[in-house]
């Protein structure tokens, strides 16, 4: 920690940073208004799958970057789960060295174009920005600037591809190609390891590809990152379920010396209420996978998807918001969120809730489904809902929803998307004898090295945390990469 503070101070004292700081008075900086992200028109965008946030222009980005005070004690960094050197990259933007901004982001964040789009900045870096904390005015748009720098670099056609150390011939297997797996692969390939990423689906990318929709995170952005990893020498083996196609033990026999499990929280939860297995009721994973990964809404793709006139999405997280907004885009007349608490407690990002509201999504808060009914063909047609009220805070600190007796009523719905959380995918844990898992089925690791009870197996992301975030998964991946490197160095030293 001491080191990091010193390092930050050192970088801050560089001549160009000092010069920039002096070029505009702090008072003039703080009097600038936060630049709004240009957004596609709500009516237009709800008809298609175009990205909602259009990205800042060069001029907007530079202007926004001027608001940042380059604080001596940059509290924003403490709010960032991976401690990105935020003022540094923002000052590069102010200096109009956008490539420099992108490069400095990549020192800590393997996927800035992704994180700039999907991180909950409003509860992380931006929540602890000087503006938010001290001035009580809108924070520097750190997320929008992060996205700007990463997009600028990608569009320049000249992406910085880190140098790769000479090959050391040591094989490491990465299981799962979500953000945690991609981060491990990127860091270890740079150090000269021979990396194979095993992915169960036919395309790499994890939730970034099959879950988060185009209108929030275009697949192309993830593909570029994957291509860069390929250019650096990472091998991707799709259609490979570790634990089934081959076990960790078998891969060990094939020469892999260390493993990273980044297999995500793939198992969708259901509520186990009567009628839940009717047709037209599915998990958000199924719905989003059909639409995002399988392109089901396009006529020339073979995968079908059910369309609904009255679509109810159960839940209040990002996944629920993504599902309901997708349903709207696929032509639903009523696209509704059914959530048992209030807007206040909703775990979805503020931005997603705001966008959903603009697009005409209805919010049935303080409502909980208790039963589903189906027509004679077995297709859901009605939900029985119960009204809720908020009681005392529960273990999570959120007020606990309590059912109101006798408040049940029925709502028409011909498509229901259940989005009430996910559990860790048990495939990997089940296939490794002796692996320590928690009560919830997550893999237990030591927090620093990300090492599991099986010494050669490291893990991170949702398989360790349960459903978490892209940035935490990415950060875990980076820690695990460092842990794996230390483990292999030590092991191979004692072997020689």
């Amino acid at each position, binding site marked *: 920690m001491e080191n990091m503070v010193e390092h930050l101070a050192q970088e801050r004292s560089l001549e160009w940073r000092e010069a920039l700081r002096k070029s505009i008075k702090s008072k003039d900086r703080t009097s600038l208004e936060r630049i709004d992200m240009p957004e596609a028109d709500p009516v237009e965008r709800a008809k298609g799958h175009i990205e909602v946030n259009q990205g800042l222009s060069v001029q907007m980005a530079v202007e926004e970057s001027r608001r940042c005070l380059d604080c001596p004690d940059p509290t924003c960094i403490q709010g960032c789960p991976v401690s990105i050197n935020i003022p540094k990259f923002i000052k590069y933007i102010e200096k109009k060295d956008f490539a420099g901004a992108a490069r400095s982001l990549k020192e800590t964040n393997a996927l800035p174009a992704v994180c700039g789009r999907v991180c909950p900045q409003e509860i992380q870096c931006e929540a602890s920005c000087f503006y938010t904390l001290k001035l009580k005015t809108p924070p520097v748009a750190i997320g929008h600037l992060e996205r700007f720098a990463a997009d600028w670099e990608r569009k320049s056609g000249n992406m910085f591809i880190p140098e790769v150390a000479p090959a050391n011939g040591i094989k490491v297997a990465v299981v799962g190609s979500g953000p945690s797996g991609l981060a491990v692969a990127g860091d270890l390939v740079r150090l000269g390891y021979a990396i194979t990423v095993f992915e*169960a*689906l*036919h395309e790499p990318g994890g939730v970034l590809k099959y879950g988060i929709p185009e209108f929030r995170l275009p697949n192309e952005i993830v593909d570029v990152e994957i291509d860069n990893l390929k250019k650096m020498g990472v091998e991707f083996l*799709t*259609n*490979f*379920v570790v634990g*089934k*196609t*081959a076990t960790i033990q078998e891969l060990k026999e094939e020469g892999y010396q260390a493993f990273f499990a980044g297999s995500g929280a*793939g*198992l*969708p939860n*259901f509520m*186990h209420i009567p009628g*839940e*297995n*009717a*047709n*037209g009721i*599915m*998990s958000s*994973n*199924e719905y989003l*996978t*059909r639409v995002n990964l*399988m*392109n089901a809404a*396009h*006529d*020339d*793709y*073979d*995968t*079908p*998807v*059910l369309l609904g006139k009255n679509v109810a999405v159960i839940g209040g997280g990002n996944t629920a918001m993504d599902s309901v907004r997708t349903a709207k885009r696929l032509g639903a007349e009523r696209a509704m969120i059914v959530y048992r608490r209030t807007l206040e407690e909703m775990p979805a990002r503020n931005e997603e809730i705001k966008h959903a509201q603009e697009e005409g999504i209805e919010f049935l808060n303080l409502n909980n489904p208790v039963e589903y009914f189906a027509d004679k*063909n*077995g*297709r859901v047609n009605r939900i029985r809902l119960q009204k809720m009220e908020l009681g005392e805070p529960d273990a999570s600190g959120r007020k606990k929803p309590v059912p109101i007796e006798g408040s049940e009523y029925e709502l028409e719905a011909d498509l229901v998307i259940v989005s009430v959380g996910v559990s860790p*995918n*048990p*495939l990997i844990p089940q296939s490794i004898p002796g692996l320590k898992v928690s009560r919830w089925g997550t893999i237990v690791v030591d927090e620093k090295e990300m090492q599991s009870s099986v010494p050669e197996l490291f893990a991170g992301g949702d398989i360790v945390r349960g459903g978490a975030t892209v940035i935490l998964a990415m950060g875990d991946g980076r820690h695990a990469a460092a842990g794996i490197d230390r483990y292999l160095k030590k092991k191979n030293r004692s072997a020689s």
Partner: protein
Amino acid sequence: MNKIISIEHLSENVVKLSIEAPRIAKKRKAGHFVIVKIGEKGERIPLTISSSDPEKGTITLVVQRVGVTSHKIANLHVGDSVTDVVGPLGLTTHIEKFGTVLCAGGGVGTAPLLPIVEAMHKAGNRVITVLAARNKELIILEEEIGGFSDEVVIMTDDGSYGRQGLVTHGMEEIIQREKVDFAVIIGPAIMMKFSSMLTQKYNIPTVASLNAIMVDGTGMCGACRVSVGGATKFVCVDGPEFDAHEVNFDELLTRLGGFKDEEFKAYQTFLETLKKEVT
């Protein structure tokens, strides 16, 4: 990309294809299935592995033309490739020496039944197999099944081959004739429903292999959920085989029709485009 090594048309609408998949060939056991996808724009569908050759690194799949994807598969040629094949998925069949095992296969259900018949036979069971289909055309793999069965009974709806009657008739005769210790039933959901009711009547422990709609096949989506003993299970990871007497077949039947309209429309469009290509 998995290359097709051989194709055999078992009947007009049923093909048997052997494809390159060395890792799967090595690992797979009775009960396992794969998910395949044809072409970049294809859908993912589950197919049970009917047999494999670990030396040659091939697996055998049997496919009946029923919709877009199975039609595409049936039209493939030797040397073509299946775009994506992933597996082996699901849990393996529980094999032990039960005594006398009655196996019943309906239509293409005979294909996934084959490895189970083989394994039951090798475990020292007396194996009696009933193969049933609408007509002679649709009775498949009789010879292969015969190789591992002590007796094979053929039933056809129209009497064009074997004896006329439903699968349950053939099964009941055997049950009444001798003591059956265990039963395995695989076929269309409706066939499994009635076969299961039959063995329940006689208190014979029975497993059925369920053919649910799937997407990923790894427990990620829940498309394949079924009710077994009142609890929701995922066929792809908890199955595909379950205690037949606990399975809610009516729900399975309904769920199998979940995309009927969409599938029908897609198949009609697909057949139209095929026609256009020919003319």
